[in-house]
């Protein structure tokens, strides 16, 4: 089951977050910073699945944006990996020319 879905930029600013299980609002920021820290510290040679507390994090990097999905044990990691890409393609299709802009 997907626990949360985050889009965070390289500086750690949250661009989008959706939680599917209730998490206190102050805990959310801590969670997000920790998650982005563990994803940023990985090099490109390491795999995209990280174990974090009792979740598994599956992340994918698109230019300066990280999309991170937190799941529990029952999910197929590779299917979620594919799902992230599907999501980005849908956005691209729907909004056309999706890109990350940090300073408008």
């Amino acid at each position, binding site marked *: 089951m997907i626990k949360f879905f985050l889009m965070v930029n390289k500086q750690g600013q949250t661009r989008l977050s959706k939680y599917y299980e209730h998490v206190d609002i102050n805990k959310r920021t801590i969670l997000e910073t920790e998650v982005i820290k563990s994803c940023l510290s990985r090099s490109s040679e390491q*795999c995209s699945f990280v174990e974090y507390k009792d979740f598994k994090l599956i992340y994918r990097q698109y230019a300066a944006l990280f999309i991170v999905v937190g799941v529990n044990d029952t999910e*197929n*990691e590779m299917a979620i990996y594919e799902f992230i890409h599907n999501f980005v393609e849908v956005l691209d299709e729907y909004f056309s020319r999706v890109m990350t802009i940090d300073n408008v």
Partner: protein
Amino acid sequence: MPAPIRLRELIRTIRTARTQAEEREMIQKECAAIRSSFREEDNTYRCRNVAKLLYMHMLGYPAHFGQLECLKLIASQKFTDKRIGYLGAMLLLDERQDVHLLMTNCIKNDLNHSTQYVQGLALCTLGCMGSSEMCRDLAGEVEKLLKTSNSYLRKKAALCAVHVIRKVPELMEMFLPATKNLLNEKNHGVLHTSVVLLTEMCERSPDMLAHFRKNEKLVPQLVRILKNLIMSGYSPEHDVSGISDPFLQVRILRLLRILGRNDDDSSEAMNDILAQVATNTETSKNVGNAILYETVLTIMDIKSESGLRVLAINILGRFLLNNDKNIRYVALTSLLKTVQTDHNAVQRHRSTIVDCLKDLDVSIKRRAMELSFALVNGNNIRGMMKELLYFLDSCEPEFKADCASGIFLAAEKYAPSKRWHIDTIMRVLTTAGSYVRDDAVPNLIQLITNSVEMHAYTVQRLYKAILGDYSQQPLVQVAAWCIGEYGDLLISGQCEEEEPIQVTEDEVLDILESVLISNMSVSVTRGYALTAIMKLSTRFTCTVNRIKKVVSIYGSSIDVELQQRAVEYNALFKKYDHMRSALLERMPVMEKVTTNGPTEIVQTNGETEPAPLETKPPPSGPQPTSQANDLLDLLGGNDITPVIPTVPTSKPASAGGELLDLLGDINLTGAPTSAPAPASAPQISQPPFLLDGLSSQPLFNDITTGIPSITAYSKNGLKIEFTFERSNTNPSVTVITIQASNSTELDMTDFVFQAAVPKTFQLQLLSPSSSVVPAFNTGTITQVIKVLNPQKQQLRMRIKLTYNHKGSAMQDLAEVNNFPPQSWQ
């Protein structure tokens, strides 16, 4: 008032903020504007304001004042309002807020709305944050929508039903009839969500699971759908990199897994399709691999035929060879799960797994290490060990401890020869010496003692190892012990296995002394070294004076442990020189006892103390027999368990043995070196006497740490006092010496003292000094009790006293609760 800014402007403004403080300021300004706008009950811009509020909430700022506004938006007739209102409800409201119940009526109305999009919104919101009351009220509506022909609504209703079932499991039966037709749909959205619904039902309720297996034609239906997906041609709507709707395929496979688990019929029905999926799926892209992964998991979980299982493991093997890290990680994880059941098949991929040890990724290395240990067996031990040792050399510190322990375990189980075993352990000690666990040292020493023919070889290698570097404590401890024991073999150059080295007695003493002096040595290591030097005094001939000098220097050492040892060794030189050679003889071969709590202590103490006895004395003398069982009853049964003696040596067989755990070998330790009574010297082989002579002495060579003594019992003229000592080498052992005195005018004869402790403790009672407590406090009976308290719980004890006094038999029970905290903490 000017129109409030749009969401886009807000986002742009916030992004221009340079610092956190600036951002907070902007947001607060905007919040204030929004609040005043809410107060004005402005209908036109409400939705815009709530949208901004939601954005700010997402960034982490409080937004609770918008909750009622969301409700107002939901109640409005405009679709755009409803949309934002429902989104706000999903984000801001949950069961914890009381406000959410107000939504129920709105949702109910919207579920019956004429526009499907509004119905969809309502379903979505209910499925996201509906509380159990809401679910109960609205379940009927959801079920109705589940049966509708509108696929847009059907799929949303299915997901909503999943949430309802999670919240209120009793309503599951309600949705059962609706599920009959769900899988007949063509629309993939409906199919997908229906499979999710069915999965949820099967997982939650075993009855449902059984129902679906038997009555419904569920498995054949699923098989058919899956087949269509694979076989059908290109379908632009569902295509992902050449595969048709992989997400649905994965879901179906997962449901098949649940259905087929432990069920032969279902498993049989799926065998074909699983084989088909496994062989036909394209593996060049991640998508295909995801499907294969799910297939493998399913095959391993159901009762599949062996051919299929082999196929699955081969797929995993292929994954391992793939360049993509993700796939390798996933493969290693699955192999770890299956290695127990399909050991042989996994063995075939051993070389690939071992290669993964060299990978750069930390998660992959860890998995590979665990898997390697699981795969070690008698045939491949040599090759695997080479790889594992190489891994130990180069891996990160966080792995070293686990790896070392794993290597020791594997070596112990499968060592092809003693020499190989010792070599391996030595290699581990030299490469990862500081990460080795503490209990490895005594195990290793015991191993060395037992391989008698290897003594010369071992001591030579250890000597060479510490010549260069004596910083790794476990290595130095083992080496010091061996040099102390087998120093004579070292200097006589008798090694058969290797080229013997020429070592003089002085050189050996040099190295031991440098270990003693070195800053890197911890106190335990120094203890080992000093004892080794002492032992060498009987094995070396020319350097006894030097040894005497060293020992006497440490008689004034600041380290109390060293000081005590040195003082005692000095005493040995001065007054008891005739006993020295007998005392410091070679250690006998130790029997391997089961490694549970008490015996661990046995091993450690046996090695750190210098006193080998030729025979292992049976523990304390006569045990009280029938009374012991009474004592068991006294403690109410649930507190105490009859403790199974762990020492295999001979001991008095008695009922008392059940009650008292027999830590027999502890008696070995230190006793003779602190025995001042010359009478004990010639009687070393008769332990009971030895113990008698000692029962009034502290049995550990450790200093009492000033624990206050207590009066445990005082009644009818009989007083029993407890004095305490704690062991430095083993902090969970407390030694209690009891002294019984009698202030009446008549002696108390046939005095027997018994004690019992709660289950988490273990107790050993040594024999008393006598059985008569003389009158008028003219003498005392002393007896020693040893308590093992591994969990450091509060010490409690029940004692039972029986004696004859004034011609009549007396018996009394008491509980001792006033143990000072220092005695057990």
